[in-house]
């Protein structure tokens, strides 16, 4: 019996319980991840992070939530009130909705019913997630627009431009998975990874997805539109109290959502690590949820790690990277994958498939070599080109200078 058939047999009560469980899972994981992120990023910066509310500061996120809820709820006079209220609701609800198709466990028994811990199974599940993510952008756009203020408007435009650009790369990176799994249903994709994870087989897709999911969630180092250290906060500048809390919640649920999708599509979903397959039947199948969570948390850790390591990108760098590198590379990669897949599906001899693959690798190497040479030549040309001294008066240097060497500044010492 496939997962779709298992879920199809659910009664209304079971579906309600599962919906509640998925919701609780999202909220609790979000609260814990806010705490976890602050603790981890704190340790990375040689400070302990929040440690005062509850043991190890565990209920810090809850305390912050209560504080936010008790704050004054301002609606600016220039704001479009209805849209201003609707925007955070759109943001928060859409990010929860994508969890409906994420398979959290394999076959388990819930109150005597045999089912799978997945709310629903659509034949186009992944497309559904992408569609929901796109609707979520409306929250950002509308929030920026309805605030009736310039900076939120600009921030909203930037954030949405960012999300939309990286959604393209993200969608393209998933195509290879669809081609290999032969399905867009999340449960089918997980089932297809029982032997090899797509994160290994389709590594370039995985890398592109991993990068674009950071851009998609507006997270460091791609948080330039919100840049809380430099700008006031981008599209949610005018928001306060619960409405701001909704945006905050949406951001973290989004992180968990893209991590969960990455786990599902590339890291074998709820399957155990290779060689530990026997654990999947423990606790009546519920042990698979643990595998799922730990993989999601690994992704979350990477999110935090990136934030603790990388400086923020500039807007033009970010857009260039998205449109000029990520998207072309993923299109080329899809071409390669599609050709390989078509060759093997039509029963081409193994030698031909291998030959095609090695030809592609060779081609990439040659192109790369040519690129490197061109870069080197350009640098050499720059070195030869001596700019003539300026014609205007310049102040004198009051010291004896035998030689000034400004080149070779790249090798900085390790001042830790």
């Amino acid at each position, binding site marked *: 019996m496939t997962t779709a058939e298992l879920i199809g047999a659910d009664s209304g009560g079971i579906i309600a319980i599962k919906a509640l469980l998925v919701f609780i899972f999202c909220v609790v994981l979000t609260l814990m991840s806010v705490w976890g992120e602050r603790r981890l990023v704190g340790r*990375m910066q*040689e400070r302990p992070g929040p440690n005062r509310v509850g043991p190890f500061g565990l209920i810090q996120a809850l305390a912050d939530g209560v504080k936010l809820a008790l704050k004054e709820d301002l609606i600016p006079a220039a704001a479009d009130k209805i849209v201003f209220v609707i925007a955070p609701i759109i943001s928060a609800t859409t990010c929860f909705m994508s969890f409906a198709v994420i398979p959290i466990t394999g076959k388990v028994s819930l109150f005597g019913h045999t089912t799978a811990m997945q709310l629903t199974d659509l034949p186009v599940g992944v497309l559904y997630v992408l569609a929901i993510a796109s609707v979520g952008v409306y929250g950002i756009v509308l929030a920026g627009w309805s605030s009736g203020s310039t900076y939120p408007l600009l921030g909203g435009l930037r954030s949405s431009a960012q999300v939309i650009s990286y959604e393209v790369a993200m969608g393209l990176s998933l195509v290879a998975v669809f081609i290999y799994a032969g399905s867009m249903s999340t449960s089918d994709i997980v089932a297809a990874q029982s032997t090899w994870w797509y994160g290994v087989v389709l590594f370039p897709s995985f890398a592109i997805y991993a990068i674009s999911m950071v851009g998609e969630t507006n997270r460091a180092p791609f948080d330039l539109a919100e840049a809380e250290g430099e700008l006031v906060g981008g599209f949610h500048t005018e928001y306060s109290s619960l409405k701001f809390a909704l945006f905050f919640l949406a951001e973290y649920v989004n992180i968990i959502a893209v991590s969960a999708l990455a786990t599902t599509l590339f890291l074998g979903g709820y399957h155990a690590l290779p060689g530990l397959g026997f654990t999947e039947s423990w606790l009546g199948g519920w042990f698979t949820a643990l595998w799922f969570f730990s993989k999601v948390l690994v992704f979350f850790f990477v999110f935090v790690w990136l934030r*603790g390591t990388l400086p923020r990108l500039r807007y033009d760098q970010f857009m260039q990277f998205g449109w000029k590198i990520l998207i072309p590379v993923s299109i080329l990669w899809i071409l390669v994958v599609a050709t390989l897949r078509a060759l093997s599906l039509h029963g081409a001899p193994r030698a031909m498939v291998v030959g095609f693959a090695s030809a592609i690798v060779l081609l990439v190497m040659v192109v790369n070599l040519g690129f490197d040479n061109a870069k080197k030549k350009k*640098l050499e040309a720059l070195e030869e080109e001596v700019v003539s001294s300026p014609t205007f008066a310049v102040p*004198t*240097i009051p010291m004896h200078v035998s030689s000034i060497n400004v*080149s*070779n500044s790249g090798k900085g010492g390790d001042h830790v």
Partner: protein
Amino acid sequence: MSEQLEPLKKNEISVNDVPYVQMETGESVGFLGHLKGFWVPFSKIFKKTLTVEYPEVKALTEERFHGRHQLNRHPDGLEKCIGCELCAWACPADAIYVEGANNTADNQMSPGERYGKVYQINYLRCVFCGLCIEACPTRALTMTNEYELADDTRAKLIFEKEDLLAPLRQGMLMPPHPMYPDMNDTNYYNGDVKGSHPSQDVK
């Protein structure tokens, strides 16, 4: 243009003489270099944090840290402050207010003629520069290392004489009481008085 400039001295060179060199962006650190960058914050997770858990753990200040003021006493308990107001005059922030008064036979607060009747320091104004300590002719005013000077009203941050006075140590008697027998104020300032005399205990 350049003729209007001062002529160069012998050991000087013009900026125009320095060849213009295109700044290189630096050699690429390579893949391993990037990994090294990621390793730094990761390795910090397992290291000790630098934070001092302040309310529970109090880090010691430097020995000569400028903290709350203290009005000191002579070894027999008489106050060192003579109400001269030099500290108030020295204060650049106008944080000190002093009112002196005469010592009388039955109200001897300090050795000699005068004592500080009112002594206030406003810690909302004080900048802890220590000029008052330099100005004090009797070493009556010094600074402690106490730095927890926060409160919720302005009034509470104006410290009165009784907030600033040093506590009575062993052998000290609470003034007012007579001066040490056969000692004058000069003896007091020279440190000839080592403690209180039984005859000073008038209570």
